[in-house]
């Protein structure tokens, strides 16, 4: 990765400034035990955050949220330092932790230097703000009680200064290293910093008060324990969330393997559903639910015999009836997933049409749940814009025209309009999960002309090479087996 010259200059300037801030600490009068203790505490407390980073890096997954600025460091310790110590010494305590923290991407040296300088500058500024408001006196010492309601003021000022400094520095590095436009570089940074830093500031204040009291630093450590554990809790949360997404992907992959021509379809429908829902003004949690509903909409195909799904050419009425059971199978499967809530009906009703000619229940207009109308449009759109065994991919414009033609009779015009607007604003980049190539277009004419082939011969070599592929050991021999007891197939899920 090439680092722009402006970024190098910025890091250099920050290093110089940090050195200028920390150097006065070397003059006599610094209380070295406090500095050393706090400087040692900081990297130790960063361990759970480091673990979370490791999870993000190793676990991968779609959880590509840029690590919160501040992971890898533990702020209550730094804020305590800012409250207890003069600016130079406080800035010094931030250095070892920042230098020891793991850097996950190159250029390592430059990133490490930047983080150290950034923290040292922020802590130095915070300590200066505290000092200006007579914080060290207000904290009390030994048997002297702290000046309580007042001390909240310098503590708040310290935390706020720390926030502002970090936000300013992060915005600057965004603008130079990542070439963000100047207007957007600072957007959202302060809001993201403010809430956690208020909590950290309060914990830092109590640590500082206890540190100065007759009970000493030992008592102050107790304040860190809940913070440490909540960090651990958040780390576990992120890990489990990644695991959950992997489970969902496994479900979707199981469907993809049964019905190869729809590979990537589920993810794309999830994406398109979110585009529509966002345009309709749904909030973040509901968007998440819509995304999962879109991804899982065809999960009931697991219940449809593989040979029916893979059949080329026209379906018999009996086969069509079997395929039309998949929304009910899907609903039956996801019934237990509590967080999907109302969106579970999207899976049941995504083949309903506005005029009541759809299945499974033939609902009409407003009777169809909103989520289902969203997913139906997204599903049809992706089916038209991707290559299927029975048709080749159509351009986005043609697909939208087709959707508009059927809106009112098949689709909810509101959803079609929302999709049109969203595609106009954001465009359509059908994203496919890594390792799953889209069905190449040239294959389609051959599939249309050639007689139906056994699926194994249709598989990409890349698929067969994949050792975790569900289809690995199954081959044409399995297909020749009698269908087995399919008596249960006709049962309607309750």
């Amino acid at each position, binding site marked *: 990765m090439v680092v722009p010259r402006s970024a190098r200059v910025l890091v250099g300037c920050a290093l110089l400034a940090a050195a200028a801030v920390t150097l006065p600490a070397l003059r006599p009068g610094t209380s070295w035990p406090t500095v050393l203790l706090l400087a040692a505490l900081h990297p130790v407390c960063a361990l759970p955050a480091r673990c979370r980073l490791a999870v993000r890096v190793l676990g991968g997954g779609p959880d590509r949220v840029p690590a919160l600025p501040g992971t890898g460091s533990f702020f209550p310790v730094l804020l305590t330092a800012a409250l207890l110590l003069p600016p130079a010494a406080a800035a010094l305590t931030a250095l070892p932790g920042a230098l020891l923290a793991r850097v996950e991407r190159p250029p390592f040296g430059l990133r490490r230097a930047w983080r150290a300088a950034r923290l040292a500058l922020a802590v130095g500024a915070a300590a200066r703000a505290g000092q200006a408001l007579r914080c060290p006196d207000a904290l009390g010492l030994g048997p002297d009680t702290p000046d309580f309601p007042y001390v909240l003021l310098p503590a708040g000022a310290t935390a706020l200064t720390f926030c502002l400094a970090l936000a300013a520095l992060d915005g600057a590095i965004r603008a130079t290293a990542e070439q963000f436009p100047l207007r957007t570089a600072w957007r959202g940074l302060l809001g993201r910093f403010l809430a956690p830093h208020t909590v950290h500031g309060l914990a830092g204040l109590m640590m500082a008060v206890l540190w100065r009291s007759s009970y000493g630093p030992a008592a102050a450590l107790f304040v860190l324990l809940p913070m440490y*554990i909540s960090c651990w809790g958040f780390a576990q949360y992120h890990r489990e969330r990644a695991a959950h997404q992997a489970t969902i992907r496994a479900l979707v992959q199981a469907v993809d393997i049964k019905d190869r021509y729809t590979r990537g379809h589920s993810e794309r429908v999830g994406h398109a559903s979110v585009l529509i829902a966002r345009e309709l003004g749904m909030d973040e949690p509901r968007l998440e639910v819509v995304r999962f509903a879109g991804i899982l909409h065809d999960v009931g195909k697991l219940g449809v015999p593989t040979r029916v799904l893979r059949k080329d050419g026209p379906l018999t009425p009996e086969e069509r009836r079997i395929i039309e059971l998949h929304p009910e199978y899907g609903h039956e499967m996801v019934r237990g997933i509590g967080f999907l809530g109302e969106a579970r009906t999207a899976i049941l009703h995504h083949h309903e049409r506005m005029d009541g000619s759809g299945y499974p229940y033939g609902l009409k207009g407003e009777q169809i749940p909103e989520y289902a109308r969203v997913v139906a449009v997204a599903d049809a759109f992706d089916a038209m814009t991707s290559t299927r065994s029975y048709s080749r991919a159509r351009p986005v414009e043609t697909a939208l025209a087709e959707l508009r033609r059927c809106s009112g009779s098949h689709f909810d015009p509101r959803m079609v309009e929302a999709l049109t607007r969203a595609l106009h604003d954001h465009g359509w980049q059908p994203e496919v999960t890594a390792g799953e190539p889209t069905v190449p277009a040239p294959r389609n004419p051959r599939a249309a002309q050639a007689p139906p082939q056994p699926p194994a011969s249709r598989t990409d070599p890349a698929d067969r090479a994949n050792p975790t592929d569900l289809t690995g050991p199954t081959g044409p021999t399995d297909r020749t087996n009698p269908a087995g007891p399919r008596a249960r197939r006709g049962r309607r899920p309750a």
Partner: protein
Amino acid sequence: MKAAGSGRAGSGRAGGARTRTAGVGRPRTRTRGVNPARTGATGARTATAVHGAALLLTLTALGLTFWHGLDEPANALAFGVLIAFGELARWGARPGEREPAPLATAGALAYALLGQNAGKTTTHGVLQTVAVVVAAGLAGTVPHLARGRDPDLDHLARRVLTVAFAAACFQPLYNAGAVTARLGQGPSHVLFLVLLLLLTALCDAVLAALLHRARTGHPYAPLLRDELRALPGIGSAVCATGAVMALAVAVAGLWALPVLAVPLVLTQVSFRRYAAVRTTSRQTIASLARATEIAGCTPPGHAHRVAALSRAVGRELGLSGPELTVLESAALMHDIGQLSLVDPVAGGATAPLPAEEQRRIALLGAAVVRQTGVPEAVARIVERQADPYREQPLPARIVRAVNAYDDLAADRACGGLGALERLRLGTARDYHPDVVESLARVLARGGVTPAPPG
């Protein structure tokens, strides 16, 4: 899950009971099944004893406090408000959450360990501590009662006894001046509080395990191990906040209470979120398990029955905590390999298949499980489920035996009793004798008891 399992649980109970009568004098039956009636009676007696002790203590404390009046009413009021406020956190609690109201517990512990307020020595004793904690706790439950939710009596009794224990260890010594005289106001005082809190946490774990045993009839040792293992989690955050609140109030006065409440609330939020995503994850795994049923590979409810029975057998064999979770996930997904077959196995039962075919399905299943986000240990169990028992780890042995039992018992001609007999005949190679006997005991007790919280 319960609805699906209830039918089988009935037949399992009948089969198990018959087995026990038939198995008398059989040398392989080493341990006799625990009499369910006796377990129930002892359980009820334990629970009554704990509740009775807590009630007696409460009444004494309230009576004497009324009689003598409150020492330092401002402190009592502040801590009481904190505890009552903390009780509100029960709103969003999931059933079985380990610490549904951490702030209330931390406030109660802090009041028990409070020696000074902003440098002035306090004089409240053990009984006043208990009285304030109970009164605030009750005040905090009023909104819950108004909304028609049952109060958690076990939790309340545990809190009363634990707080009384902590206060009894600290207040008499402190009020007599012994603590200050021996340890002073410095770091050794902090160390003393740490020791006290460790003891209190142990006491709480013992009580919790006792009550759990009383409710569920599970063996005591794994339950206690579960409780102790959970201590470093939110339990230690609660204890630490309790100690630091006591110390901070001693230094800074009552202002310290709201300031310190914030980090603990954050801890609780993080744990709730973690718990929520864990629940979702489990539900998703369960629907992945249901995929085999929908696809017509396995009989309805099979995966859930095997999971619930495996968990019960695992508990019987001394597994606890994370091991049980891994076992349950593996049991849920043990048949998932059948999804990879283009044509399903006849009847969905793998137990009657040739060993080679069973192993092939197990390997296919492990490949699917590795794609999900569950721990690698689960995939290993699924992979080994069809091996002879001498080569298997314990969880795989359990899954193998329970799966075979469920497959065989589904056959009308065989039934629960016949299935157990077939398993016993297979103990030379396929099924581990201890696992089969534990399974028989679990079935004799009435099949599956509801999963304990936590």
